[in-house]
C-alpha cells in the first residue's frame, strides 16, 4: 500500500485502441493488487480489472490537450490506454504502477493475499490433485531398467532438479555425481518420459541399439558455447549415439520475436500486407515450427524407430522442456486429457526447474531473462489442436487460462524458479493450486469433439517429419484475445458443449419419463399420487424448455448479436465499421460517423463485458470470473 501515491483518479478516459471510437470516461483506482477502471456510464458502470502482476510495460506518452496518455501493456496481451487529465496524477499513477508491477518479494504477489474462501482441507486436497509419483507409476516405473534415485535428496546434487528422479538402474550414485559435474548446472541426464508401448526410453535405454542425442540449439550456438567451456557431446567418446541439432533459437531471439509480433497485433487498422509482412518479419511462426519439428522428430524416433532420445540445450530448462513436452503430447494420449496436461506441465516444466520467476518476470529482475518459453509450448498445443480436433480433451479456453495464470501469480503453482525454492517458501501451505481450480471448472474447458474412444484419442499422433509451412497459423484467439470483435462471433465449441449438456439432461429426463410411464401404465394411481406427479410433470416441461434454450445457445448469442450492428462498429468490426466510417465515410459525410458512435454507446457494455470479466474481480479468481461470464451466456 505504501507504493500507492494516488488511490483514485477521476475523469480518466479509457481509449479503445483498435477502434477509434470515443473514449469512455470513468474513475481509475489503484489497489494493492489491481488497477481498476470503472466507467461513469450509470447504467453499466463497467469495470476493467488488471492485476499488477499482469502488467508488462507502462508507457507515459506525450501530454495532449485532453490530458496525459498512459499506455499499459499486459502479459496476457491486453492493452490499456488511459488519458489522465492532470499531468501530476498521471505521474503518480505511473510511478505507483512501475513499483507495483515489479514486486521485489514473493510475499507481495497476489497469491499470498488471494483467498477463494476454501477451507484448509480443500486447499490441501487441491495440491494433491496432480501427483507425479502416480505419473511415473502410470508410465510403468520403476522397472527392470529404471529406478527411483534419491541421489538428489535435499537438492544436494542439483538445486534446480526435483528430489525424486528416475535414472537407469546401472547408474550408481557415483556415476550420477560424475555426470552431474560434467553437465551445465549439474543437470545430469534424468528420465522425462518412458514410452511403454515399445519400451523405448528417453534416456539411455539398454534395449535399443543407439540413442539419439538431440541438441535443440542451432549448431552454431552450440559450437560457440564450446568455446565457453560448455558444448555438446563428442561422438568419439560415446558409443552408439546419433547426433541431431535442431535449430531452436535462444530466449533473447524469442523475446524479440514476440515483441515484434505484438507490435503487429497492435497496429491500427493494418492492411493485409502490413499484417502478413509483420507476422513474417517477427519470425514467430518459424520459431513455433522449429519447436514442433523438434518435438515431432523425437516422437517419431521413440515411436517409430524405437530409439531412445537424450534431449538437451544449454541448461536444459527452456528448449528442452518445450520439445520434451511436445513429444510427450504427441506420443501419449494421457497428456492430451485435462488432467494429463496438468501433469505434463507439472513434470516437464515445474518439477524440472523451468525458471518461471525469471522467464515471466514475476519478481523484479533482469529483463533479459524474460522470454515467452512456455507461451510457445502452449501455442504448439493450440496448433496441434487445429490439426487434430478430436484428440484433446480440453479446448482453447483451457490453454488461454493457463497462460493467463502463469503470469497472474494468483495461484502458487508457477512461483519461483525451482522446486527447492517453492518448498522453502512453503507455497503449498500458503497459496492455492491452479490445477484444483481448473479441475473444478472442467466443464468449461471441455472439447466437445473429444471422446476417449475416438481414434484420435488413441496412441501417438502421427505427423509428417516436417509438416508444411502452411500448417502453422497466427493465433488471434490468444494474441488478440481482448479484441473480441476480431474473433469469430459464434463459437462452435460453446454451441456443441451446450448441445452435449442438453443431451445429458435429456438422457436423464428420458429415463425419468420411461420410469413414470411404466408406473402409470402399471399402477392405478390414487388421487394424491397424481397430484404430486402432476406437479413434477409441470416442472419437467419448464425444465426442458429452459433446457431447450440452452441448446439454442447461438440464438442467445444472436441475442447479443442483435447489437452487432452497433456493437461491431465499436469492436473489431472495428474494421468494417471503423475503417468504413472513419476512413471512408467520415470525409464524405460527418453525420455518418456521429450517428455511429451514438449507436455504439448503446452496446458498449456488452462488447466489453468479457474482457473485464476475464481480468477478474479482486477476491475472485479471474479465470473463474471469465468462465462465469461465459456460463451466463450459455445458460441464459
Amino acid at each position, binding site marked *: 500500500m505504501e507504493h500507492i501515491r494516488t488511490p483514485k483518479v477521476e475523469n480518466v478516459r479509457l481509449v479503445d485502441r483498435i477502434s477509434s471510437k470515443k473514449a469512455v470516461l470513468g474513475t481509475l483506482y489503484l489497489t494493492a493488487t489491481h488497477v481498476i477502471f470503472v466507467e461513469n456510464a450509470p447504467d453499466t458502470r463497467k469495470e476493467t480489472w488488471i492485476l499488477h502482476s499482469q502488467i508488462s510495460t507502462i508507457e507515459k506518452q506525450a501530454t495532449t490537450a485532453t490530458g496525459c496518455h498512459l499506455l499499459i501493456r499486459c502479459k496476457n496481451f491486453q492493452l490499456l490506454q488511459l488519458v489522465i487529465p492532470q499531468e501530476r496524477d498521471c505521474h503518480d499513477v505511473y510511478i505507483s504502477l512501475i513499483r507495483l508491477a515489479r514486486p521485489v518479494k514473493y510475499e507481495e504477489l497476489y497469491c499470498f493475499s488471494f483467498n477463494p474462501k476454501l477451507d484448509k482441507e480443500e486447499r490441501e486436497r487441491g495440491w494433491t490433485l496432480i501427483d507425479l509419483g502416480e505419473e511415473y507409476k502410470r508410465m510403468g516405473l520403476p522397472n527392470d531398467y529404471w529406478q527411483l534415485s534419491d541421489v538428489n535428496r535435499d537438492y544436494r546434487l542439483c538445486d534446480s532438479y526435483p528430489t525424486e528422479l528416475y535414472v537407469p538402474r546401472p547408474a550408481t550414485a557415483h556415476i550420477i555425481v560424475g555426470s552431474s559435474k560434467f553437465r551445465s548446472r549439474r543437470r545430469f541426464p534424468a528420465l522425462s518420459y518412458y514410452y511403454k508401448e515399445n519400451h523405448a526410453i528417453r534416456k539411455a535405454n539398454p534395449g535399443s541399439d543407439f540413442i539419439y542425442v538431440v541438441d535443440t540449439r542451432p549448431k552454431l550456438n552450440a559450437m560457440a558455447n564450446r568455446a565457453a567451456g560448455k558444448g555438446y557431446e563428442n561422438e568419439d567418446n560415446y558409443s552408439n549415439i546419433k547426433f541431431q541439432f535442431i535449430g531452436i533459437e535462444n530466449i533473447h531471439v524469442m523475446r524479440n520475436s514476440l515483441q515484434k509480433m505484438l507490435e503487429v497485433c497492435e497496429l491500427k487498422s*493494418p492492411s493485409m500486407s502490413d499484417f502478413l509482412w509483420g507476422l513474417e518479419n517477427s519470425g514467430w511462426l518459424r520459431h513455433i515450427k522449429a519447436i514442433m519439428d523438434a518435438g515431432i522428430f523425437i516422437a517419431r524416433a521413440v515411436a517409430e524407430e524405437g530409439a531412445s532420445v537424450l534431449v538437451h540445450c544449454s541448461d536444459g530448462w527452456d528448449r528442452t522442456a518445450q520439445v520434451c513436452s511436445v513429444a510427450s503430447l504427441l506420443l501419449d494420449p494421457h497428456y492430451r486429457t485435462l488432467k494429463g496436461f496438468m501433469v505434463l506441465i507439472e513434470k516437464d516444466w515445474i518439477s524440472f526447474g523451468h525458471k518461471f520467476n525469471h522467464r515471466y518476470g514475476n519478481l523484479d529482475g533482469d529483463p533479459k531473462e524474460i522470454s515467452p518459453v512456455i507461451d510457445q509450448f502452449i501455442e504448439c498445443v493450440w496448433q496441434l489442436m487445429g490439426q487434430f480436433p478430436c484428440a484433446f480433451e480440453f479446448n482453447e479456453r483451457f490453454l488461454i487460462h493457463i497462460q493467463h495464470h502463469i503470469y497472474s501469480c494468483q495461484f502458487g503453482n508457477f512461483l519461483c524458479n525451482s522446486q527447492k525454492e517453492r518448498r522453502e517458501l512453503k507455497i503449498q501451505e500458503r497459496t492455492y493450486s491452479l490445477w484444483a481450480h481448473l479441475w473444478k471448472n472442467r466443464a468449461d474447458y471441455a472439447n466437445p469433439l473429444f471422446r476417449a474412444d475416438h481414434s484420435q484419442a488413441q496412441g501417438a499422433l502421427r505427423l509428417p517429419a516436417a509438416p508444411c509451412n502452411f500448417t502453422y497459423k497466427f493465433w488471434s484467439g490468444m494474441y488478440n484475445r481482448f479484441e473480441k470483435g476480431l474473433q469469430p462471433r459464434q463459437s462452435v465449441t460453446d454451441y456443441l458443449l451446450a448441445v452435449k449438456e442438453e443431451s445429458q439432461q435429456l438422457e436423464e429426463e428420458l429415463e425419468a419419463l420411461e420410469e413414470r410411464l411404466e408406473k402409470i401404465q402399471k399402477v392405478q394411481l390414487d388421487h394424491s399420487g397424481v397430484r404430486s406427479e402432476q406437479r413434477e410433470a409441470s416442472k419437467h416441461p419448464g425444465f426442458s424448455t429452459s433446457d431447450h434454450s440452452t441448446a439454442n445457445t447461438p440464438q442467445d448469442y444472436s441475442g447479443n448479436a442483435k447489437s452487432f450492428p452497433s456493437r461491431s462498429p465499436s469492436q473489431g468490426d472495428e474494421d468494417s465499421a471503423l475503417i468504413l466510417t472513419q476512413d471512408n*465515410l467520415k470525409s464524405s459525410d460527418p453525420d455518418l460517423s456521429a450517428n455511429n458512435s451514438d449507436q455504439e454507446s448503446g452496446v458498449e457494455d456488452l462488447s466489453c463485458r468479457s474482457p473485464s470479466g476475464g481480468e477478474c474481480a479482486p477476491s475472485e479468481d479471474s479465470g473463474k470470473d471469465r468462465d462465469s461470464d461465459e456460463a451466463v451466456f450459455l445458460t441464459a
Partner: protein
Amino acid sequence: MEFAELIKTPRVDNVVLHRPFYPAVEGTLCLTGHHLILSSRQDNTEELWLLHSNIDAIDKRFVGPLGTIIIKCKDFRIIQLDIPGMEECLNIASSIEALSTLDSITLMYPFFYRPLFEVIEDGWHSFLPEQEFELYSSATSEWRLSYVNKEFGVCPSYPPIVIVPKSIDDEALRKVATFRHGGRFPVLSYYHKKNGMVIMRSGQPLTGTNGRRCKEDEKLINATLRAGKRGYIIDTRSLNVAQQARAKGGGFEQEAHYPQWRRIHKSIERYHILQDSLIKLVEACNDQTHNMDRWLSKLESSNWLTHIKEILTTACLAAQCIDREGASILIHGTEGTDSTLQVTSLAQIILEPRSRTIRGFEALIEREWLQAGHPFQQRCAQSAYCNSKQKWESPVFLLFLDCVWQILRQFPCSFEFNENFLIMLFEHAYASQFGTFLGNNESERCKLKLQQKTMSLWSWVNRPSELSKFTNPLFEANNLVIWPSVAPQSLQLWEGIFLRWNRSSKYLDEAYEEMVNIIEYNKKLQAKVNILRRQLAELETEDGVQESP
C-alpha cells in the same frame, strides 16, 4: 465434329495414377468424349473420373519409353499419369489437350449428360424473377417488373425481366440504357424490408470527357429516394480509375447532376490482376518447401487476401449504408458485371437472413450472378494453371465464394449451408455436367436453349440426398444482420479450396463427423422425450378427467 476424331488412343493398359495422399493405382485409362477415366478393374470402381473441361493445363515428359502426363485441374488438383509407350502417351496428351479446349459450347458435356436421378423439381424453374419479386411486392408498391428487355434489345447482358421504380416507364429506361455502360441501366438488386432502403446496380454512366448527362438517369435513381433523403453511390473503382474511364467514354456521376447522392470510391481489383493473384496463390500453396517465412511472404505477395479484405469491406460499407444510415445505394464499377455483383451479393448475405439459407443462397446466385449477367463462360474458361494471358479470365466468382466462406467462418451457426456447398459451386462454375453456369448471360443461355437441352444444377442439388451433404448441422436461424470483421487477423486462407489437395483432411473430416453425431444424437433424444411427454400427458389427462369430478 465427332469426338472420335480427337481420340487417337481410346484405351491404354497399365497406366499408373499418382495423387497426393493416396497410394499409386495401376489400371486402364480410357478416354471418352468428355471424360478421362482410370479404372483398376478391382471391385469395379473408377479411381479417376475426370471431366475434360476440368483440365486447366497438362505437362508431359518422358523417361525412356515411359511417358508421364501431369494434369492440372481447374479445381487446383494435380494428378500424374504414368503411361507406358511414347506413342500412347503422346496420343493421350494431344487428345486431352484438344478435348479440354473445345471451342463450341454445344459440344460441352452438359449437352450430352443424361441424369441418372429422378428430377423432383426442375431447377430451371426454381427461381423465377416473378416469384422473387413477389417477396418484395408484399412490402412495397414502389417497384415494378419491367419487360423492356424481353428481346435483350435494350441490354444484352440483362435478363428479360428486371425490377425498376414504378414511376419510371419503359421509354425512360431505354434512354437511360444508352447512358449506361453495356446498356446496364440501374435496376433493383435488393430491397431491405426493415427500412425500405434498396441496393441498385448498374454499369458506369457514359459521361465521357464532356460531362454528358442524362435527365432520365437522374430521375430514375432519384425516384428511389424518400423525400429529403440522401443516397450513396458506391463506385467500386478508385477515383483515379473512374476519372481515367472518362477518356474512354465512361465516367462517374457528377455531384452537380446528382445533388442528392454522395459518391464513395473503393478500389476492388479486376480481370487479370485477380487472375494473377490466383495463379500466385495456388503456386504458393503447391510449393512444399518447408520455410515458414517464404510461405507467409508468398501468401502476402499473391495479394489474394488483400482482395478478399477489399471486397468484404466494400460489401460491409454498402450494408452499413442501408441498415445503419437508412440510405439507399447504387453500386457500379465499369461494366457492372463483376465487382458490382460481388458487393451487391455479399451485402445481401450480411443483411438478409434468407440469403444465408440454401434456397436463398441459390436464389441469390441465380439473381445476382446468372441473371445479372456475370460472364461465367469467359471468367471461368481457365483457372490457376493457365499460361495464356487471356484477357477475360478472372476468379471473380471464386473471390465471392471465398468472402462468403470468411463470413461463414465468423458466424458458423448462421448459415444453413456448409463449406462443401461453396466448394461444390466453385467446381461447377468451372466444369460441370449441368448447364447452369454455361454462357455469359441470359441472352446467350436462351440462344443455347439450355433449359431444353441441359439439366440445371439446382435440379440435382435440391434433392434431399444431395442437400444433406451441404447442410450445416450447426445452423440456427439468425434473423439479424451479421457484421463480419474484416481485420487481417480475422481473415484466413480458405484451406478447403486452396490446400484441399495439399494436405490430408482426414482428421478434420473426422471432427466434422463427430460434430454431426453430437447434434444428431441430441435431436434423436429430443424426439424421444417429446413422444414420451405426450404419451404421459395423455395418460395423465385421462386420469385427471376420470378423477377430477
